């Protein structure tokens, strides 16, 4: 299998601080791989190591079958990137900034600048100085620079930053189109699980420099915790009746019973019938699925608002 990105035991230490440790990644061609983590988790350090901007303390990285060494000219002709906040030369216009980017990628046709301006919706701003752009348009310019030379591999660090909802959808569709129609591989770093889950095929979760988990998006759906929440006038009686019938229930602080066994989750109607039969009719029966953010926070050990008694 062709692997545009492969790292072996990659790590980076700054003095006593370990930013990234034992990172072994394999990203397949044409895949959108989301690299998910909180701020400071090590996402940007990893991207900078993959781009040869930072020397790894341990391990090695290969990008497009080229071993990455600082200062090397390879394989950047086929790589586009947007790292952290997009910056451009403020005194140059949008067009001139893209012309600078084009000249840094020899072989890119002059017409590419006009094409990418149009594609990124920057036509109205082409002659405007980059220093006067809004955050959203600065982000579009950053993405335009990354895409200008039609790269085979894209590194995007928080690409949705500063974009309005319409812009986020637009960029999402653009990235999906690039992967489907041109086989571009995308390595996407983000801290927003809900956003990347709509886009990525695979997700790697990094926390405090460690890769906690790698999974397909389908697996992510399966791993998300579900629970049945139940309210009744006499909660203790309801809990006893359910326990007797073999449904373990836990009392939550907010006066709700929580059931997490598969039988309850798949047949909430049976629970309701049972409680009616024993004279404790339910006031509310709700099957709730853990949202992506709660799942993410649970995984990184920052339990997002679980309120067990």
């Amino acid at each position, binding site marked *: 299998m062709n692997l545009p990105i492969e790292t072996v035991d990659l790590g980076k230490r700054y003095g006593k601080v370990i930013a990234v440790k034992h990172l072994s990644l394999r990203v397949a061609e044409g895949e959108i791989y989301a690299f998910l983590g909180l701020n400071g988790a090590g996402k940007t350090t990893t991207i*900078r190591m993959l*781009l*040869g*901007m*930072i*020397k790894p303390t341990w391990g090695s990285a290969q990008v497009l079958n080229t071993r990455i060494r*600082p*200062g090397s*000219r*390879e394989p*950047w*002709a086929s*790589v586009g*990137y947007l*790292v*952290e*906040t997009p*910056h*451009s*030369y*403020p*005194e*140059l216009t949008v067009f*001139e900034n893209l*012309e*600078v*980017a084009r*000249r*840094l*990628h*020899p072989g890119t046709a002059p017409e590419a600048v006009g094409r990418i301006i149009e594609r990124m919706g920057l036509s109205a701003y082409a002659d405007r100085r980059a220093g006067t752009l809004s955050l959203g348009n600065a982000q579009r310019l950053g993405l335009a*620079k990354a895409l200008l030379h039609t790269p085979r591999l894209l590194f995007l660090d928080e690409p949705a930053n500063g974009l309005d909802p319409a812009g986020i959808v637009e960029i999402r569709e653009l990235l999906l189109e690039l992967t489907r129609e041109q086989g571009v591989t995308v390595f996407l770093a983000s801290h927003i699980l809900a956003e990347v889950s709509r886009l990525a095929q695979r997700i790697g979760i990094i926390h405090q420099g460690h890769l906690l988990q790698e999974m397909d998006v389908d697996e992510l759906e399966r791993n998300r915790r579900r629970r049945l929440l139940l309210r009744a006038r006499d909660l203790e009686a309801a809990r006893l009746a359910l326990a007797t019938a073999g449904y373990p229930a836990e009392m939550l602080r907010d006066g709700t019973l929580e059931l997490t066994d598969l039988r309850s989750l798949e047949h909430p109607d049976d629970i309701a019938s049972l409680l009616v039969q024993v004279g404790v009719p339910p006031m509310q029966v709700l099957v709730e699925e853990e949202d992506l953010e709660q799942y993410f926070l649970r995984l990184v050990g920052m339990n997002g608002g679980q309120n067990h008694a």
Partner: protein
Amino acid sequence: MHDLTNAVWIELRKATRSRMPLFTALGFLVLPCGLAFFMFIYKYPTFARNIGLISAKANLVGGAATWPYYLGVLGQAIAIGGIAVFSLVESWVFGREFVDGTLKDLLAVPVARANILLAKFLVVALWSLLLTVMLFLVSLLFGAVIGLSQGTAEVFWQGTATLAVVACLTIVNVFPFAFFASLGRGYLLPMGVTLLVIVIANFIVVAGWGNYFPWAVPALYTQAGGKGNLEAASYLLVLFTGLAGLTGTYFWWRFADQNR
């Protein structure tokens, strides 16, 4: 070569689109204006006193309203002022990539970092030379308007050659400030080092060791109408300083972690 041409185009575009050429030109023009002021006073001391340009206590001994004296002082001014202005240019060309956060866009590209750096140094050299030419032409104009004496062809040729050598030595001398701009990731460190170098150069010249301090060499060169008391080692030291600046900057860009 094509990569270098592209890199030079990029650096020129960045420079010409900014206000820095205007600011450095205005800054550098202070020198001929100040010199012309003194030449005017030397030429017309009584008139200058009568209209209040100078007080009765002004000491006008040592100067003369002549072309040789004027061009000699101009050379000294370029040797000292040039360190400040050329290093400002260098600090901006290199330091701005860190200050504006644009450095990362220059790193993972299929153009060798050596070409990108060489283009920056070439633009700094060109910019500094143009500033010197502008200063020289303005100074000639001021000198002609004031009506300085002893303006023979030989004086002009020798003055021009001295100024050209002084400018080149000064340009080479400021190459290390690119390293300090990179190390300090901005403008403050190179400008601080520039100030320090100018102060130290003055002390070292007074102590008589100026021949061996590269940043004092251009000023010493202007003494005695060019060459001064310099020896081959002085020029080699300047050359070594310039090369140290080029290689130090290259190795820093090549091997240091770039987090901005």
